């Protein structure tokens, strides 16, 4: 049932579906239904991998390694491990939801939209599974294109500017990434991730320290923009406020964070540790900065953007503290952010469909008209601010607790973000849903969620709860890969492993 | 004698060229160019290229320049207006020209292994020429016909008045 072509099939399926979409007639909702079914099949395909994953096995699984281009030595090498496993599934999960979220919102040029939407799925899965640097870079760049075009086509007011900003912001640093990749190739003659890993760690004569440092920095900058990390987040606000929901859901976070884990930690463990102090500082600044700025936003989408910045900075913090639990948590939180942020954006999109504005001040007392919507919004907000039993908490807790021992001061500062997140999210909830009804809400009563919207958001809400309660289902695979990742150069004391008698490291 | 001839006709060349540069009426420039070309033909002779010298006079001075004069007359081109459309030509162009002339001159003068020329030295006969032209360089010669074809074609296409 699960042979080696499944992974290839998973990558190519959305692209193939996109071609079919291009040929379908734009009549009625044919395209929507087709894309929905295709994305559901895609989701099922991505679920194959967790179902057949062999735990405890080192290295990559479902691997395919074929010749592609003889010279330069580029291979079609793909595979999955614990790091990418659930990210692929997450991509699959968000695909049908993205279709559902766009059902009504995309009221013109559905064909173009769904064509690019499906292409985007291929690109994202490709990023997660590519094990050849060339292939990886190709997918990485490819993710930008549907995004930029869709922002331009479906932007609210300043779509074109936002699209340009997004593209240039992310495209320019990937030039540095390409330089770094080419540099590695020049020295080793291979683009293969596995071979590179071995050569970088053992080939002392191949590289000078400085060169490796710069190469690692090149990788990191490109990824940091995509995450985004604090001073590089300039594109996020505009992109969030202009992009169609289905695209904004997937634009930030997972791609960049995955890449940092896979390449900065996997390929350059030593350099990653040299860069870590900077990244930790930026992450903590990002957490607090994002939260504080979110506190004073007047536009919901911008608030969501800064909240995302804050939330993703937690992941960055976790990654660069190099504690097993912390990195586990960072990856787990990456998945969580995908779901929570996605749900938040879908909800905002639903609101926009009804009232046509993201201006917070225009709303008020909405809960009376739309109780179900309000309920879901509160659940999502709670997940976002890390309420225990919901998924956000597990991730945040693992990140902070894991990293605390090594970087007490920074992590303590980061924990303040927990307070601030509650402040801005609950303020939003209060201003929009509670209190007296605003003029707009009073005069334009709008229906509560319909069946489609209910299905969309409830499925995410339930997943938030399940992920908050049964995290080992996910962290098991993650942990297996992360231990290997963190181990090589981790001299810093990891908090003691659990045993019958707790081992104790008393400081002072 | 040889040196005198060189200086005389070399000087004539330069004078003609300068006159071309300085005259504001195109006819005067064209006539100056004829002077340059004819002087060059003499220099070719000095360098032993007899046939070439003849061809220079016939083809260049005779045919091409006549064409120029013909067009000048056709278009009734008068004295050119004094327009100052381009500052860049003076500001960046002249330093460029100066650098060009200096560099080339220095390079040529500092070349040590160049030979010397005498009168009647190494005359090239038509036989030698045709041997190379119609054997070794047959293909370029044939290809030239394509060039001429294109030129005719282009001249016709461009100069024809569209109705």
């Amino acid at each position, binding site marked *: 049932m699960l042979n080696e072509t499944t992974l290839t099939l998973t990558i190519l399926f959305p692209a193939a579906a996109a071609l079919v979409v291009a040929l379908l007639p734009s009549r009625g909702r044919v395209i929507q239904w087709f894309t929905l079914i295709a994305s559901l099949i895609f989701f099922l395909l991505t679920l194959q991998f967790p179902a057949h994953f062999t735990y405890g096995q080192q290295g990559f699984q479902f691997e395919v390694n074929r010749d592609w281009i003889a010279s330069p030595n580029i291979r079609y090498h793909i595979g999955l491990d614990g790091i990418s496993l659930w990210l692929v599934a997450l991509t699959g999960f968000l695909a049908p939801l993205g279709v559902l979220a766009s059902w009504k919102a995309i009221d013109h040029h559905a064909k173009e939209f769904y064509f690019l939407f499906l292409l985007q799925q291929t690109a994202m899965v490709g990023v997660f599974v590519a094990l050849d640097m060339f292939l990886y870079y190709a997918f990485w760049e490819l993710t930008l294109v549907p995004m930029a075009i869709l922002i331009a086509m479906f932007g609210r007011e300043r779509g074109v500017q936002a699209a340009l900003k997004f593209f240039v912001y992310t495209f320019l640093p990937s030039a540095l990434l*390409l330089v770094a990749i080419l540099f590695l190739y020049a020295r080793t003659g291979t683009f293969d991730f596995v071979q590179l890993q071995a050569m970088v760690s053992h080939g002392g004569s191949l590289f000078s320290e400085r060169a490796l440092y710069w190469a690692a920095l090149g990788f990191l900058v490109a990824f940091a923009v995509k995450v985004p990390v604090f001073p590089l987040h300039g594109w996020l606000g505009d992109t969030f406020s202009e992009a169609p929901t289905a695209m904004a859901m997937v634009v930030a976070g997972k791609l960049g964070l995955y890449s940092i884990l896979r390449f900065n930690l996997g390929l350059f463990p030593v350099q990653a540790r040299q860069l870590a102090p900077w990244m930790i500082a930026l992450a903590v600044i990002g957490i607090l900065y994002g939260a504080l700025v979110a506190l004073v936003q007047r536009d919901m989408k911008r608030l969501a953007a800064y909240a995302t910045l804050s939330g993703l900075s937690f992941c960055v913090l976790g990654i660069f503290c190099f504690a097993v639990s912390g990195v586990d948590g960072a990856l787990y939180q990456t998945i969580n952010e995908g779901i929570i942020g996605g749900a938040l954006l879908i909800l905002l999109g639903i609101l926009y469909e009804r009232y046509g504005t993201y201006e917070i001040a225009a709303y008020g007392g909405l809960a009376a008209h739309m109780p179900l919507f309000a309920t879901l919004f509160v659940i999502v907000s709670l997940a976002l601010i890390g309420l225990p039993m919901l998924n956000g908490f597990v991730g945040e807790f693992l990140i902070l607790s894991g990293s605390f021992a090594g970087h007490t001061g920074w992590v303590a500062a980061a924990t303040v973000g927990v307070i601030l997140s509650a402040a801005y999210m609950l303020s939003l909830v209060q201003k929009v849903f509670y209190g007296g009804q605003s003029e707009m809400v009073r005069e334009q009563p709008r229906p509560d969620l319909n069946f489609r919207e209910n299905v969309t958001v409830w499925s995410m809400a339930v997943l938030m709860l399940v992920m908050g309660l049964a995290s080992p289902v996910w962290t098991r695979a993650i942990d297996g890969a992360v231990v290997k990742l963190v181990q090589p150069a981790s001299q810093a004391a990891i908090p003691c492993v659990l045993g019958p008698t707790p081992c104790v490291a008393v400081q002072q | 004698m040889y040196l005198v001839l060189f200086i005389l006709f070399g000087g004539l060349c330069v004078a003609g060229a300068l006159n071309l540069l300085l005259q504001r009426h195109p006819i005067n420039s064209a006539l100056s160019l004829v002077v340059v070309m004819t002087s060059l033909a003499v220099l070719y002779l000095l360098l032993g290229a007899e046939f070439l010298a003849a061809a220079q006079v016939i083809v260049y001075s005779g045919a091409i320049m006549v064409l120029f004069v013909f067009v000048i007359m056709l278009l009734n081109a008068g004295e050119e207006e004094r327009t100052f459309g381009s500052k860049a030509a003076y500001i960046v162009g002249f330093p460029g020209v100066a650098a060009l002339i200096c560099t080339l001159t220095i390079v040529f003068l500092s070349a040590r292994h160049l030979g010397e020329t005498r009168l009647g030295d190494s005359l090239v006969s038509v036989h030698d020429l045709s041997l190379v032209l119609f054997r070794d360089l047959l293909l370029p010669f044939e290809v030239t016909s394509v060039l001429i074809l294109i030129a005719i074609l282009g001249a016709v296409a461009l100069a024809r008045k*569209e109705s």
Partner: protein
Amino acid sequence: MMQIETGAQVPQVYRILPEVLLTITGVLIMLVEPLMPRGASRKPMGVLALLGSLAALFASFWQMGLPPGTAYYGVVQTDAFSVFFHVLITSIIVVSILVSLDTFDRKTENTGEFYALAVLGAVGMCIMSSAVELLLVFIGLEISSISTYIMAGFRKRSGKSPESALKYFLLGSFATAFFLYGIALTFGATGTTNISQIAALFRQSETPAFGYVAMTMILIGLGFKVSAAPFHIWTPDVYEGAPSPVVGLMSTAPKAAAFAVLLRIAYGAYPWLHAHWFLLIWLMAAISMTVGNLGALSQQNVKRMLAYSSIAHGGYLLVAFTALSREGIAAATFYTATYAATNVGIFAIVSHAGGYEERLNSITDYRGLAYRSPLLGGALALFLLSLIGIPFTAGFFGKFYVFAAALDSGVVWLTIFGLVNSGIAAFYYLRLLTSVYSKPMTEAQLATIPALKPSLLAALFVTVTATLILGIFPGRTLALARAGAATYAVSGSSTSVGTANFSLR
């Protein structure tokens, strides 16, 4: 470049078969054209030209089977390198004729001449790529140049087209003089103008300084032809004024041929001067990329923008030269193909959308093109993405290969510079792209876009396919480009000059 002795005797004419076929086609058109009634459609001429150039294309492919060798007393040489460019040039001609078939028909009385010029111009370009005698190179260069000068001025009724032709012609001839001077100095330094002998003879030259100056002069002349900065200055004006199908042609085919010549001369004739031309080309590449991209940044006119883009792409291509390696040659060769596939395609769309009268000029005129015609919009998007260098398009792999080769040779800074430049470039391509995909201001503007004709569809099919194939499965083409590059390595290692000095860094 040494004389490659042909083991099996091949009839000499086989070596120039594509050129012969093209010439015959051109002459045929010239003979038949006057017989056609005035005002009648000249499409049959176009079809004739198409067939002729297709025949030349197949002949070029067929040449692949020939053993490498020279003909006509060593003035032309067919090898993988020349075949690559022959195929490329004839393909470009085929597509360009397809594009102009409907754009030009009945719009001008000189349509027949146009086809003849295109086909005969291709003769010159093909010859440039296979000539190993500088005289022949010069003749080829002139054929290709003159034909493009004329074609640039084809829209006589508009004020811009003759101006474009004049500028191109005057400045082009100006640059040709430099090129010619370079040849003269080469002859002075070595006593020969045969590329395959220059390298060897230059070693014994008593006036090596002439060689240096000669190489510089040749670089100036060819730099002009490939619109490399600082000799790029004519490009925007000429591209703006010339008819769009012609721009598609002249921004690719003559450039490809000129690059072929530059490769032959730099690597074949003057390998000993690599330190010298490396520096000059390095500078030209850096300036070209910067000037091209910055100039295009706030350019509103689409054709001018593409002209600046073409300058920048010339710069990227020159980066490959600085690799000083077989990979570099292959990369440069390959890049000409990727750029040609994309650019011919993009100008096919520009020609069609604007028509002969060139109704669409500024970027905002293109607003909503994707809504009017999704196919045109989609294809344009693909080409623009390819120009940006988005993966799975030709442009990406071309750029990737070029920079890989450069970095492989340790040309780090130019690579970084180039890649950052390509990042900046994304901005202006995207402006057009987003414009194409944003809602049109008025419907009327786009209503003038004619319906798609089969010939244009065919042209788009070819270019889109080429763009994708070169992006996803570049293996075949790459192998051919590498084989072409290998011809230099062969000459390097087997001649007496040795390669120690030129050995790849």
